[in-house]
């Protein structure tokens, strides 16, 4: 695999070169082959985005392997940090210790040999009180899905979820596995304050608020289990690959 210049990539995508800007863009947009895309995020970070726009669980497994390899194999003096996203990965480093070109080449080399990790199956059960004040959107969501509240809760709690990645807030796990009929677009206007422990759904994803913060997702219930404690090692209860099951502790009207 070879790192190409911006001009080479432009030839492939057939976009007319913008004379005034191509020089500036040359180093900012790198591409290896036609698909995996690598772009600069300043001098000290690279975003690797091999996805197609639709979540692919197998690709996520390979990216988790890449994240682990990048953390262990890249030069330790370069302040390497890896943020696993949803079908993508951000590599942050000290560019005065590791040149961005070298970081790009090293990352793509690791990607070639990254096989999906067999994650040791770890299952976390989260007891949930559905509905009530903490889950004030439950009734509307059930109605929107054409289900009774009990049926909505049954489907939400029968599903098996997988943590795709952790991010946004300290300890916030993006979970996949929400039944398709429960998927719902995010709110147009986010709520400014959603309480810690609130069980939420947004798009095709599920989650639990690890702290009180703004959110554009919908609220369906509440768990007492703590997601994040800065003084624990590791600080997060859930990590990429963890299986999560929501257990019905109660349903409040």
């Amino acid at each position: 695999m070879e790192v190409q210049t911006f001009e080479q990539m432009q030839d492939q995508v057939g976009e007319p070169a913008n004379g005034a800007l191509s020089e500036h863009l040359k180093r900012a947009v790198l591409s290896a082959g036609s698909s995996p895309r690598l772009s600069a995020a300043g001098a000290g970070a690279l975003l690797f985005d091999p996805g197609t726009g639709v979540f692919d669980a197998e690709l996520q497994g390979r990216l988790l392997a890449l994240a682990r390899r990048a953390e262990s194999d890249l030069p330790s003096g370069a302040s390497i940090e890896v943020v696993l996203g949803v079908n993508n990965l951000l590599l942050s480093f000290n560019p005065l210790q590791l040149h961005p070109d070298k970081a790009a080449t090293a990352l793509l080399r690791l990607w070639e040999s990254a096989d999906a990790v067999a994650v040791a199956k770890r299952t976390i059960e989260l007891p949930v009180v559905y509905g009530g004040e903490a889950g004030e959107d439950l009734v509307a969501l059930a109605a929107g899905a054409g289900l009774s509240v009990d049926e909505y809760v049954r489907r939400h709690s029968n599903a098996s979820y997988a943590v795709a990645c952790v991010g946004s807030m300290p300890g916030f796990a993006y979970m996949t596995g929400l039944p398709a009929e429960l998927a719902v677009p995010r709110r147009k206007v986010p709520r400014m304050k959603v309480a810690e422990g609130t069980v939420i759904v947004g798009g095709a994803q599920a989650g639990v608020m690890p702290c009180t913060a703004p959110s554009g997702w919908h609220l369906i219930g509440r768990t007492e289990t703590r997601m994040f404690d800065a003084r624990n090692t590791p600080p997060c209860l859930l990590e990429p690959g963890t299986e999560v099951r929501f257990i019905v502790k109660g349903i409040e009207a």
Partner: protein
Amino acid sequence: MIDILSTGAPNLIQDAGRRGHLGFGVSRSGAMDTLALSVGNSLVGNDPTEAAIEISLFPFRVRFQKDLDFAVTGADCVVRLDEAVLAPWWSRTARGGQTLVIERPKRGARAYLCLAGGVDVEPVMGSRSTDLKGAFGGFEGRGLKRGDALKVRGNVARAVRESGLGVVPQGLPSFWEALSSGVVSIRVVPAAEYRNFTDEAKKAFATTEYEITPEANRVGYRLNGATLPLSSPLELLSHGIVPGTIQVPPSGQPIIQLAEANTCGGYPKIATVIESDLWKLGQAPVGCRIRFIVTDVDEALTSLGSRAAEMVKLQQTLALMSHRG
């Protein structure tokens, strides 16, 4: 020990930031103006990354319980130690019982009070920075309140001259002139979705000014200016972002993510502010206009290298001066 006499909740303990925990969803945090933090620390003999007080609500008043070297850097403020007025970016020795007042800036947005030895708070996840979102780090995970007493690690008073010592970093005078004019230039590198914006958007981004709206804090600044449309709508999966990322939500008005940026985002990204210009944003107040200059990774790297070299030179000069006594 110093006693906080007047403050506001936005005044926080910050160091050079929390590294290595982005993968847990923990923001970098740290000083918004790392240039001011590192120079201020160097002036009082600290490691440049040491924890200091970031002040964005004024006036800020403290009383020193014991003799202590301190430095005030960052915004252009009137600084008084009892009756004596200090020059900007200056360090001195305070005597026990003296009061330091930092007035509202004439130019700039954030002042840094660095104390010899560094502020003594327990590091959490490798940093003394306050993480407001997670309510940990810094002083009890919160902003400073009147009546708080801060300890320093070691009581050091060793300023070389009674009148103190100051530094004017390269580029600071011209930056302050820019602040006075109301327009600052910020260099950026195109980001992942740059190509997806219309030619008009790219042109507007690089040639027109964007004003910092009142929705501006340590998480990020919302800007107001020419809208930046995409060529066609774009739905992105959540992905890692860094401080300096310029996102464009559906409104077409850009947002610059800063020190407390969420570790993941979903909006298209037009550009990223280069690392060595982030400090300027930390000093750009609400109402200030920004002109973006599109550059490349090479320049971002060169600029970062020169700043690192300037810091090394400063350290050497200060070491030399303290030896001469």
